[in-house]
């Protein structure tokens, strides 16, 4: 019942994963045909998943290390024994944010945008 994120050399174990969302963008192209109300469709596979992830760490040093790991430009691997369908290879795609948990005041959230790579 654990979720780990690794970059090949370091492994971070999240206390909790929250706020997972994923989208895939369609890439089919619709070409209007002259003199017709129909379209020609050029089929293309949709893009890989991308989304936002919110991961909780109880230790600020671990959270900070994970943030740094995300920021190194490495391809990461997410592995969840609890939710295997979210397993993926990904890269940071946007901002990565370190945030103190408002309620507990001792846990740390790392919130980041990701793009699946494989």
């Amino acid at each position, binding site marked *: 019942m654990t979720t780990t994120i690794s970059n090949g050399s370091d492994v971070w174990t999240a206390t909790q994963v929250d706020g997972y969302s994923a989208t895939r963008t369609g*890439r089919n192209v619709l*070409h209007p045909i*002259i003199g017709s109300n*129909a379209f*020609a469709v*050029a089929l*293309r596979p949709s893009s890989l998943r991308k989304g936002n992830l919110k991961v909780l760490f109880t230790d600020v040093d671990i959270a900070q290390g994970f943030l740094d790991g995300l920021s190194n430009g490495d391809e990461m691997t997410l592995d969840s024994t609890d939710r295997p369908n979210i397993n993926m290879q990904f890269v940071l795609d946007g901002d990565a944010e370190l945030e103190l948990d408002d309620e507990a005041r001792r846990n740390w959230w790392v919130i980041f945008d990701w793009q699946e790579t494989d």
Partner: protein
Amino acid sequence: MATPKSISVIAASVPVATPAGSVFYTEGFEVDTGGWVAGALTYLMNRPTGSLARTGTYGLATYRNASVGNLPFATKSLSGFTPGLYYTFTAWGRQPNSADPSAVLGVEGIGHGASVTTTTLGWTQATYVFQATKTTHVLELRSNAVISANVAWDDLAIFEHDPIDLQVTEASITLDDSHAPYGVVTLTAPIPSEEILELIDPRTRQVVLVSAEQEWIEDYKADQTRDFAFRIGDREIDHVNKTVTLTGYTNEFFLFQAGLASATAVEIATVSVRDATQQILALAGQTLEPGTDDHVLPTDHQTLAATNLVTNPSSETATTGYVAVGGTGGTATITNPVVTTPYGTRVSRYTQTASPTTASTTGQYYDVAVTAGLPYSFAINKWDLNFYGGLQFAIEWRTAAATISTVGTVSLGNTAGSVNVNKYTQPDTNSTDSWAFSGTGSIAATTTSPHTGTYAYAVTRSSGTANWSISRTITGLTAGKTYLISDQIRTISGAGTTTVVVGATGFGGATQTLSASYVNRPFSFVATSTSATLTYTFSNVTSGAVVVNVDQTVLTEITPGPNVGVAEIINFVAPATATVARMHYRVSGTSSAAIGMTMDMDGLIAVQGTTLPTYFDGSTTDTAVNDYAWTGTAHASTSTWKKNVASAMTINPGDTYWDFLDTVIQAGALRLFADEQGVWRLVEPAGYLVPGLLNVGETTNAVEGNDIISLVRSSEGVPQWATGVVIKYTWIVAGVTNTAYDVAGTGDVIARIEVERPFPGAGAAAAYLKRYTGRGRVQNLTALLDLEATPSMALSSTMPGTPIQTGVVSAVTFYWSADGDEHGLMDVRSRGLTDTPETAWVLQPVGYAWDDVPVGMSWPEYVTP
């Protein structure tokens, strides 16, 4: 209409020289020669067994029969290559001697691998890595063995190197018949590894292979694939977007880059545009597809290409200069009978009229005047021996009176290829085997002094002075076949001189004076039926008993080996004091010089130089490019080969090859281009059409379209359409500027073009005008991607409110993209459009015949079925 749904896929890869990949071809010669054929001057090729096979039962052997400069070799045309890909060609070779043990693999038009030193009589593997430039290549197995012996080959293999894939995110390919280069590809991919980045460096002349697939869902149209090979001309890395963009071009790009690095101009000695194009492409390692479209520039001077020093090279009017050498004690004649060859209607024929009495060289020769210290090359272009033997072509350097040395001896293949079958062998038993005696005396088997074995025939004249003879009928012969009698004959006892005539009834005989030592008295004849009677007739004018031994009589049926081809001796320097090169065509040994033996030769050529041109004499038919003449009396003087030349066929220092070629090609109203498979074509544009018809129409596949008629000139002043063209040529000769104009059409809408090259003659203006005329009305269409669309293909377009237009596809651009909106589309540009009724012939179904139209129906009534 059903919604067309398609999947458009583009893939790109870069060939790599290593490592070898999948097996492309193998051959072990276990079934047959695998389609390999003997190369020029390699007169025998077979499938040996035993030690001449490395694995299995058979190998492939080539038999040397060539002079220096010509290695024994075999070739095979093999198809299925992917232009641009690398291949490793390997084979095992076994050389017959230690003199020059080597094995060389090659590909015609591309090159050869390094010569691999082999262990004498051992197997060594040779390897050659090459990059395919066409789908079909001619493979070569070569050796430089210097003696006549079998060079064996076995276990051939070709491996195709797997290319490295690029991850393409954006691609477009343009093919344009009004543009050079004809094809341009633009590919965008994420920045690959450093290794691949090095591979795609344009300076390495790297090829990028592009493979496109178009799959249509629900059978809207048949699925399509198309492969392209381009040379990378530009590589641009975008470090912000982390992408690399490659621009590749069809092979005209070579000619845009390469040019003349020299301080002096080079003249291409021809007036033929096709010939000049071939020569220029060869400089860039390219070859022109065969074709007939050509243009001949006006000749303004000639250059001497070669002089044939043989004054009577084809014996057309006389045998002058040809000398028979009948051998010691032998006689022969030279005649010039009617035999049609590519070199005329007569040949020089040597005929043995009396055989030599001892083993000696026989044949004919021809003397050519030479100058000491200069290199010469020689050839007999047609030789023919009706017999067999150690046939040779050799050059003997001489002073006016004496020999100096003999060089370049070529062993011709007649001996090696002949098949000899014994039809009769004198038995080595105590029997006379049906031999009949005539005269006063007897024939008997004797153990006294046989030549070989235990018995010989003692043929005895018991008394008197009359001749005596023995004879025997041999059956099982074939009319028309050549037969050779050989034997060993000597006197045993008797006074005076005994002479024998060996022959066959009806064919005459060969005379020999006998002694107390055995001699071979050969005789040949051509059978006229299935039997012949062999005769030995003895004479001795001294009265009394004479005993003669006859032994080892053998009658052999001869099937001569291959006796066609060219015998060449190339690049030998005449030694000091040499004034004559004697061209010998000869056989050695008495058995090869039997009576009736004939040796023909024709098409002699001797030139001063290190290379040998194709045969010519003063009677060779002139062409637009070549001029042949006798320097004196026809067939009795040397001949010259001059090339007609035009000043426009000059490459100036710093010119690219395209600079040069473009001018002369335009003058001929021709078009040179390399297609997406690297095939070079020189064509007459109006006559060059690609099969097929591209339909672009509303409600079917047209996405966008415009129709343009414009008289507006570009910012450089170039009109889009013109009624007249003027080309101004300017060039400098000896500091003086020359000017010439080529004009076509009228001045209503004029186009002016300036060219800084010698005037190649009129023609280019008319060609430009034709092109301008075709651009009077142009449609630019965007349609669903169709991989068959190709420039020079017929085009039919149907746009709203416009009559059906038919013309020709001038350019097409295909688009692929991971994200972009143009994915799966193509742009099509037209030329030569005309309004076309629906019932026009070009729009009828394929295979619809004129006769299918009902009699009496007019075209306005006709409805397309």
